[in-house]
């Protein structure tokens, strides 16, 4: 009998994820101590873990690594996505410190769950195998389901949690069925080997059905139309800090995984999925923007806006080549800064001891809190895509990639949609600057960590807008390993 040989384990490529998960374990331990420790300390540990993971990710830039027989591929693409994810999660932790103190239970499990879901997102972006992809997706999703309903006494939060869970699990079963059929068609779950096995037989029925079901599953996770119905309810009902994480981190991770699967494993079926995603992108943009116009709840409005932004990003996926996915990566970076900032302003405002979420609550905000109003205004203008803010440059790269790849009409639909979107974003700005408040209006709740988070996000969108070239070049370079 041969002795069981331990395969070599490369810890290096795992380091960023291990730091995040280690911090999660530490947070749980601190929460269990007999003498309760302050929630600031727990939040600091969580933040330190995320910053550590960010540094570990940056340190590995340019040194791609693979671990566990190519199950984990930490190339520059995954590293870029990890930077976006770690940044978004760190911002969420900073915004949560005072927000939780006001609205929620003061427990450490909130931070542990944020860290667990962040670890799942980072693994998802680095998954080189469909099994890892599924495990990472579930680690991320299960943590987010619980986070959405963590404020158990709030009716809306638990309802949002249940809707998120049911539709998320529903989507998972489609995704998993697709994975099983792709495995059946190619005999492997490794993305590179799937590409090799699928080459030349793009019209194998098992493969085509598997691809379709996989796209349905991903469509739910990134909330593209027609699988977007959960997003507004969940964004509205979940605690605002959790909404920020769902809108930025989980979306970035799922889009990164989608791009990796489509571009590496299913390259042979490109004509099939490009046509399908063309239609999905056009409908997603239009539905998101048109329905957003009718919203009066700011969280719901931002939910529909985020659906529209997924539509823009799908333009880049359709465009393909090296320019398309590179533009999507860069857009994810700008989008994470902007959206996390916009939700961040919401966590800092309250009205009559409750969250200020109606557009009307923000009437006259500019007169009482000019800095806060200017911050929200800048985030919204960046979402519209007004130069010189980050959103403009992100959209420019996306539409340019589409035009260069010959998808002129898709770019035109995108531009028309951006113009349409200006209406509902600017309506909020008009309320802040030109309307008198009805009654007390929204009140600023001072929070040092929250203010710092907003400052970082503001610097980010201005910096990315004024000197985008180095970052866009990095995003383009990050996509290169996928296209070998």
């Amino acid at each position, binding site marked *: 009998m041969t002795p069981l040989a331990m395969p070599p384990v490369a810890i290096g490529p795992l380091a960023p994820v291990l730091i995040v998960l280690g911090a999660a374990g530490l947070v749980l331990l601190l929460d269990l101590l007999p003498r309760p420790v302050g929630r600031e300390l727990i939040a600091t540990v969580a933040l330190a873990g995320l910053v550590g993971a960010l540094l570990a990710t940056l340190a590995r830039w340019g040194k791609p690594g693979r671990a566990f027989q190519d199950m984990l591929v930490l190339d520059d693409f995954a590293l870029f996505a990890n930077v976006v994810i770690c940044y978004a999660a760190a911002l969420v932790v900073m915004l949560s410190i005072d927000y939780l103190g006001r609205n929620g239970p003061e427990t450490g499990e909130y931070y542990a769950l944020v860290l667990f879901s962040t670890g799942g997102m980072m693994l998802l972006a680095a998954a080189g195998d469909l*099994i890892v992809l*599924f*495990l990472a997706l*579930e680690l991320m999703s*299960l943590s987010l*389901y*619980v986070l959405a*309903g963590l404020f*158990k*006494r709030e*009716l*809306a939060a*638990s*309802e*949002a*949690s*249940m*809707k998120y*869970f*049911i539709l998320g*699990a*529903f989507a*998972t*079963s*489609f995704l*998993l*069925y697709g*994975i*099983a*059929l792709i*495995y*059946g068609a190619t*005999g*492997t*779950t490794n993305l590179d080997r799937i590409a090799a096995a699928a080459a030349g037989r793009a019209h194998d029925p098992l493969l085509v059905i598997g691809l379709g079901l996989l796209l349905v599953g991903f469509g739910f996770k990134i909330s593209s139309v027609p699988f977007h119905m959960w997003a*507004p*309810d969940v964004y*509205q*009902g979940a605690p605002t800090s959790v909404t920020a994480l769902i809108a930025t981190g989980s979306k970035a991770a799922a889009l990164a995984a989608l791009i990796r699967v489509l571009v590496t494993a299913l390259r042979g079926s490109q004509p099939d999925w490009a046509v399908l995603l063309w239609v999905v992108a056009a409908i997603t943009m239009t539905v998101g923007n048109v329905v957003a116009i009718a*919203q009066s*709840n700011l969280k*719901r409005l931002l939910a529909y806006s985020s659906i529209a932004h997924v539509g823009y990003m799908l333009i880049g996926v359709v465009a393909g080549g090296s320019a398309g996915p590179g533009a999507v990566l860069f857009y994810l970076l700008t989008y994470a800064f902007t959206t996390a900032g916009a939700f961040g302003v919401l966590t800092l405002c309250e009205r009559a001891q409750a969250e200020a979420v109606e557009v009307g609550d923000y009437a006259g905000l500019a007169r009482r809190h000019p800095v806060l109003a200017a911050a929200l205004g800048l985030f919204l203008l960046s979402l519209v895509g007004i130069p010189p803010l980050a959103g403009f440059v992100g959209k420019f790269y996306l539409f340019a990639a589409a035009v260069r790849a010959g998808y002129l009409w898709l770019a035109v639909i995108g531009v028309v949609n951006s113009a349409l979107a200006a209406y509902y974003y600017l309506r909020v700005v008009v309320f802040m600057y030109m309307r008198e408040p009805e009654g007390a209006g929204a009140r600023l709740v001072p929070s040092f960590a929250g203010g710092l988070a907003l400052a970082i996000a503001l610097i980010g969108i201005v910096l990315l807008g004024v000197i985008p070239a180095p970052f866009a070049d990095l995003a383009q370079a990050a996509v290169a390993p996928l296209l070998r």
Partner: protein
Amino acid sequence: MSLYGYLTLAALVFAIGLFGVLTRRNAIGILLGIELMLNAVNINLVAFARFRADVAGLVFTLFTISITVAEVAVGLAIVIAIFRVRRTVEADRLDLLRG
């Protein structure tokens, strides 16, 4: 039974689960439907592993079974949390969030 026999069986189980999710109004019924859909995947994976003589499919099945258990545990916890506050788990009556 050929491979396609098993694939047909899995597709039927998946369809029954899908029907359950779409028609049930009770949260527990919806959960059961999702369970059926996920188990249809396991039939597929095991059948592919058997007919391709490849162990990866069996390993994958073990992973999906354990993840599914975790998923249902979280789902039931959420259902119980909601029942404690609202005294109902009928999907139609959970309509605070709309617009």
